[in-house]
């Protein structure tokens, strides 16, 4: 079994109103000098294979087909 983590983030230039709100909330808690917050998503997956190349290819296909909306999001794949 291979464990993997997929991280999906907004592309540069895509407005992130949630990130902005979080930034405002941190500032109101007294954390000064925090900027550029972007909210994203993390998926932890377990793949029933030992073939790392296949796992990586499958994960890429999963990202392209479902996990990320590539119109607005980028993704990275990490195998453990």
């Amino acid at each position, binding site marked *: 079994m291979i464990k993997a983590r997929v991280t999906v983030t907004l592309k540069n*230039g*895509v*407005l992130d*109103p*949630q990130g902005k709100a979080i930034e405002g909330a941190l500032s109101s808690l007294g954390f000064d000098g925090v900027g550029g917050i972007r909210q994203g998503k993390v998926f932890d997956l377990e793949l029933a294979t030992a073939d790392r190349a296949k796992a990586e290819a499958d994960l890429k296909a999963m990202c392209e087909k*479902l*996990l990320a*909306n590539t*119109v*607005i999001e980028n993704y990275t794949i990490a195998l453990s």
Partner: protein
Amino acid sequence: MKSAVVQLPGLNRDRDMIAALTKISGKAPVTVWQTETELPDVDLIVIPGGFSYGDYLRCGAIAARMPVMQAIKAKAEAGVKVLGVCNGFQILLEAGLLPGALMRNASLKFVCREVKLEVVNAETDFTRAYGKGQIIRCPVAHHDGNYFADAETLASVEGNGQVVFRYAEDTNPNGSVNDIAGVMNVKGNVLGLMPHPENLIEAAHGGSDGRGLFASVLDVIAA
């Protein structure tokens, strides 16, 4: 003209849509469940609003991968008219049938109110009953209606006349780029919009500004 309404778990505006189509065309639409792979022979397929799959992952993302969407894609390619309202619009974008994406409202709040829409393109199968530049009233109810497209896509969508409706008179409720409320595909047979024209079709609704869209697409415009 025959129509069909798609049903998926979590969609909740299907009954409003069925009522609107029935009242305006005089014929009840057929309903199509998400697992169908063969669609009935209809002229118009409507994906109504709601919260398909609880808006999990992204609004419309899971619905867009259901079997019925492959069948709808094939019908759209064959020229059948497809209309997506609210969550239906989100599903059409996620399925790649329309350009762009819908993001969380800029205010981060769910908005449920009436807005003004400008009919930007009145030369479509969906808007023939309106005049170009006409301002109509229409209700909205959504959390993720903030239309976004990258600069290149936006330029082509604007340049091709694919922007069909824009929020007018400073009523943009969600931060959509260029005040875009509804877009169609290049071929002009697939339209998606966030507002709910099916909820403003008769006196009991307090107006009938939404009726023209259905009259146009169902080809029942009064002479």
